[in-house]
């Protein structure tokens, strides 16, 4: 009762990074509240992950292990999650804001009639006084998220309904192994009474998993292009600079929407959050939608023809000039000056 739940996403026998990041955050919340952190793993052959989950802070690992749970399907996962939450009554339940989490967490919240806040960028425990009723609450989960295209930051609370549910995108929180792992005690979920035959009505007939080829999250140098790069061909220059500097190529939503580059490279609220050592923003105006995903970079260099571009307000160096003119010079002088 009253513990913190984290749903663990497992694909191809691998735990998703976001689940480990949520365990680290969940550990912190559980410590503040003085309760246990419990991981929920639903899939096939998931028990072997218990030790790994304990390293990231799970006191308890709930498992439902059966072929019907892999690959992920909405209805059986929802049924088990709802059943377990009704049985265990956690006060908080966290999910990754992945296609899986964003598919079934809303369904779980609806079934439990509890509120869910999507894509939180921060989760903290705090007090709350209801403005209307005057009722005071000791330790609610503040679910902090950008809204309105990132132009406002909202703090959301669920005063009355439990669990307090939130999703968080990959890369937003940090994952950290504990010096001494938690207990990681395995408990079997008695799932058979929870899943109805009709929950199995949707069938997966074909599945195609692509190799993860682009890794902008782990890159220490990112060269990102925006709409100002102008074309798919223009992105060639961005790639060239990234290659010379040993970095990865990122992009703003506008550049991805315009078809200049792949969706996997999108940085920002609806893409990936990055914190590289060096971020070179090429032809990116710097809408909050984008900067929210990169303003933690250690150093930001912007290349923009508009000296008033909002990106320059968070840049360390603002080069006023066109991408076509500046990038070749950067390549030239990098090669000349590096050994």
């Amino acid at each position, binding site marked *: 009762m009253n513990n913190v739940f984290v749903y663990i996403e497992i694909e191809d026998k691998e735990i998703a990074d976001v689940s480990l990041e949520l365990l680290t955050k969940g550990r912190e919340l559980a410590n503040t509240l003085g309760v246990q952190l419990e991981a929920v793993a639903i899939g096939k052959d998931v028990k072997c992950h218990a030790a790994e989950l304990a390293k990231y802070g799970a006191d308890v690992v709930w498992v439902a292990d059966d072929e019907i749970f892999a690959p992920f399907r909405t209805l059986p996962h929802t049924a088990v999650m709802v059943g377990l939450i009704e049985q265990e009554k956690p006060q908080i339940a966290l999910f990754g804001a992945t296609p899986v989490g964003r598919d079934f967490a809303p369904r779980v919240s609806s079934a439990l009639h509890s509120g869910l806040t999507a894509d939180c960028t921060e989760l903290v425990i705090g007090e709350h006084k209801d403005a209307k009723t005057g009722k005071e609450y000791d330790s609610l989960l503040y679910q902090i998220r950008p809204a309105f295209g990132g132009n406002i930051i909202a703090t959301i609370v669920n005063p009355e309904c439990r669990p307090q549910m939130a999703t968080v995108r990959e890369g937003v929180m940090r994952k950290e192994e504990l010096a001494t792992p938690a207990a990681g005690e395995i408990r079997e979920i008695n799932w058979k009474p929870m899943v109805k035959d009709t929950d199995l009505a949707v069938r997966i007939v074909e599945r195609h998993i692509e190799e993860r080829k682009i890794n902008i999250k782990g890159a220490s140098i990112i060269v990102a292009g925006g709409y100002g790069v102008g074309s798919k061909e223009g992105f060639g220059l961005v790639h060239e600079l990234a290659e010379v500097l040993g970095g990865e190529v990122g992009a703003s*939503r506008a550049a991805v929407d315009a078809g200049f580059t792949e969706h996997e490279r999108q940085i920002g609220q609806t893409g990936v959050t990055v914190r590289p050592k060096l971020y070179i923003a090429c032809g990116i105006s710097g809408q909050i939608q984008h900067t929210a995903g990169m303003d933690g970079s250690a150093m930001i260099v912007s290349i923009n023809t508009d000296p008033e571009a909002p990106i320059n307000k968070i840049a360390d160096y603002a080069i006023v000039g066109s991408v076509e003119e500046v990038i070749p010079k950067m390549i030239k002088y*990098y090669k000349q000056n590096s050994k």
Partner: protein
Amino acid sequence: MAKQVPDTRNVGKDAMTPEGTVNRAALAAIFNPEDLNALEMALQLKDRVGNATVHILTMGPQRAADIIREAMFRGADGGYLLSGREFAGSDTLATSYALACALRKINPDIIVAGRQAIDGDTAQVGPQVAEKLDLPQVTYAEELVDVKEGEITIKRRLERGTEVVVSPLPAVITVNSSAKECRPRNAKRVMKYKYALATSELAEAEHNRKAFVEERDYLHIIEFSATDVNPDPEQLGLAGSPTKVKKIENVVFQAKEAKTLTAEDKDIEALMQELIASHTLG
């Protein structure tokens, strides 16, 4: 299901106040982009099945009827506007409840919606409506593969890759931006439907237009008030919303000391030398 949203993607300079916050009134109201992808998929369903109609359901103020007309210009047969003060302050759960009440009344065979709306980006309403109606859901839909009696086959996007699923009908499908773009307006349809009005608009219309629309059923956008869809008032609007907004902060750009450089060779060379010397590069 579709939503009229403020165009948060294009917050231009004129939409920013001197304090660096957004002036929401300066943003245009648009058809939520992924709802247009959803409309296209619905129209494809109609093309395949033949004997079918496509209707838009939207919840919002009177002006949201604009997106129903827009959908009619592009191929929809008509629409429903769910409107009323009772719905104000709804979070996703209360919104889903209201839409589910309306859908029970309309009783469609397939419900198609955009994956998420750009003003909230939550992607919750589709799955929550499905749960309220006890229907299966297929989210992140990218392509309509097949539809036949009682069954739909959809290709959907995964985190890395795609999968093809077969779901019994009725079902709720939410459509991704990677799906086919919506067909454009059709000039003949614009001529035919431009005078379409929702019930409350009709009441306020001037005499001639009122008479014109009243004679033509196909120009009538059906408007539901809260009482029309028999909801439990406890589950509507602010009262029916478990999540409460505790605080809103406007994002203000914090200016930091940016060093401005020109595109001249000496500036770029000095920068690259500095980045190498500080071990930021190399």
